[in-house]
């Protein structure tokens, strides 16, 4: 088991957001978390990532963590290669290999601002790939992309997950994306 979550309660002040969310994700499994916007999907992911420790319950993570955010979230003042080296902790050769894996071979010396949005998304995926994570968190990584790019990125993400087999949690509001990537699905509903 790589990721074990037992969240009893999470609230922002007096406003409860999550209650009794329990699951485990093993390596090779992809859990899709679905639900309407504002229901707490991103909050759940922040708890899983360890970015928010203010909740009751327990989250156990085993092994290296990587995340693909809604925005590419790159360091614009560092080259594509350095964006991988400095975050995933890999050497230049491994970083080059990760760039090639997502179709960015030869772009290592470019700054994120010189890349198209699609290429920035690929770079963000390459960063997670280079980290060889045991746990991979995807926070609506295909939102606000045009259809062709979504198809493209879905295929790439699918093959990367199949190759490295991390325990994956995939937050999305698109049922089709969940059907494509996930081995299990979980629906978050609004708290009464």
């Amino acid at each position, binding site marked *: 088991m790589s990721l074990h979550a037992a969240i009893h309660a999470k609230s922002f002040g007096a406003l409860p957001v999550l209650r009794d969310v329990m699951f485990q994700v093993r390596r090779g499994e992809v859990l899709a978390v679905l639900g309407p916007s504002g229901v707490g999907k991103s909050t759940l992911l922040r708890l899983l990532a360890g970015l928010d420790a203010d909740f009751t319950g327990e989250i156990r993570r085993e092994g*290296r*963590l*990587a*995340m693909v*955010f809604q925005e590419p979230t790159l*360091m*614009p003042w560092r080259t594509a290669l350095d964006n991988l080296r400095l975050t995933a902790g890999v050497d230049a050769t491994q970083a080059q290999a990760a760039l090639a894996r997502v179709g960015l071979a030869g772009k290592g010396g470019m700054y*994120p*601002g010189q890349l198209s949005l699609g290429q920035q998304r690929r770079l963000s995926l390459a960063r997670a790939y280079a980290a060889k994570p045991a746990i991979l968190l995807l926070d609506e990584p295909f939102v606000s992309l045009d259809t062709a790019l979504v198809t493209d990125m879905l295929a790439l993400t699918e093959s990367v997950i199949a190759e490295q087999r991390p325990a994956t949690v995939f937050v999305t509001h698109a049922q089709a994306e969940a059907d494509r990537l996930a081995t299990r699905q979980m629906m978050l509903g609004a708290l009464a």
Partner: protein
Amino acid sequence: MALSDTARLTSGQSAIPPPRALPNWVVRGLSLSGLLVFWWGLSWLKADPMVLPGPQIVLPRLGAEAMSGALWHHLGATLWRVVQAFVAAMSLGLVLGILMGLMPRLNRWLDPWLVFFLNLPALVVIVLCFLWIGLNETAAIVAVAINKIPLVTAMLREGARALNGQLADMAQVFGMTRMARLRHILLPQLAPHLASTARSGLSLIWKIVLVVEFLGRGQGVGFKIHLHFQMFDVTMVMVYALSFIGVMLAIETLVLQPLEARARRWREA
């Protein structure tokens, strides 16, 4: 991308020249020559070298003072005080500004202090430091640093408030070390604020150093200006003022601008 856009907006200091415009150094040279001509014109109109000596009187005296070595001795003393006060004010102000920018609760408690020290007149701080610490080098440096720290703090607090939270999250998720976060996440975002703070800091600090030297030191540009002021030697007052402005122009051109260009490289790539 949103981040690079905001960074572009905050950079703003020296704009890229439009195509086919004169190179920057030519414009700078012509502009300074214009100032020289303006000065010469004023002195010609006044026609009294005791009150306003022209460049043709001041520049030879500057040369003589430089040849005698006295100029370098006093410039060096002032520059050394500027450097010490600058380093002290920048590092303390940087830490305070980042802490206040990132911690709203600390900011609530320290903000009134900041307003207090921002409005404390430089002259009062200098006089009090000389009275409390004594007429010595420590008092001089402390007085200048105290004058500058609140300004650095206020400017870097703004920078810290504008930090990108998503990048901080990313750094944490990927387990970047504290040192790596400082170098690759924090400082690049603060670079435009650091550059403008350094620039305004240097120009303010050397002016305060001069007042400190004027009031209570036995060497330095401010001391020499005081000396020649008492003898009503306007020419020598201008010799020392001009030479230190020259030093500051050199620092701006040879140190600050190249550093800024390096920090800005990614935006222009």
